[in-house]
């Protein structure tokens, strides 16, 4: 069964450092989402791509976060500089078409010290 891949699974960094997360969606899925999940909360959208284009990045803190999906396949989410409050689980999800069931990867757990 096809799955969404994410790496790394865990990342520990010091504040003010740069971190990057990678996501490879299920083959053929045009829509890709990055969510952030704080412990005890539900996931919240950071950015949504349709192919290589950003559809929604209204909740992305653009002063420190950036995301790209250059060839419309895999995607990278970057944080620079990282802050203590960025400690969370970063989840990538994909769907075949917008609005359909989303399939999530295992997530990257980030700890900022």
């Amino acid at each position, binding site marked *: 069964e096809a799955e*969404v891949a994410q790496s790394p699974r865990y990342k520990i960094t010091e504040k003010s450092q740069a971190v990057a997360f990678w996501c490879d969606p299920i083959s053929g899925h045009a829509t890709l989402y990055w969510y952030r999940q704080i412990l005890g909360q*539900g996931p*919240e959208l950071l950015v949504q791509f349709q192919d290589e284009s950003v559809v929604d990045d209204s909740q992305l803190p653009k002063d420190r976060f950036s995301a790209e999906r250059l060839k419309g396949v895999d995607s990278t989410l970057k944080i620079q500089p990282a802050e203590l409050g960025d400690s969370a689980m970063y989840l990538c999800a994909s769907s075949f078409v917008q609005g359909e*069931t989303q399939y*999530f990867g295992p*997530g990257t757990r980030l700890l900022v010290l």
Partner: protein
Amino acid sequence: SQKIEQNSEALNIQEGKTATLTCNYTNYSPAYLQWYRQDPGRGPVFLLLIRENEKEKRKERLKVTFDTTLKQSLFHITASQPADSATYLCALIPPQAGTALIFGKGTTLSVSS
């Protein structure tokens, strides 16, 4: 403000009983609502989707109802097993607000043997 509320943070039941989880939403009129299961340290896994014109949907031991008048969905697990212990998230896509999911905080179900 728009929000989704799940009835409780934690629910403890005995094996064999039926678990009932509640999801209430305000200020939305979603076309459908989804339920996901999330195990600790993992990404959410899609379970069921119910559309606004469907009152009930079943999948094996799972049953979901959707009352658009009450703005409520109920999620039932019959004959619960310890392996059902997890956090269950309800999610919806607000109409005319993109296609990213809005999640509740989740209810953590613990099934004891």
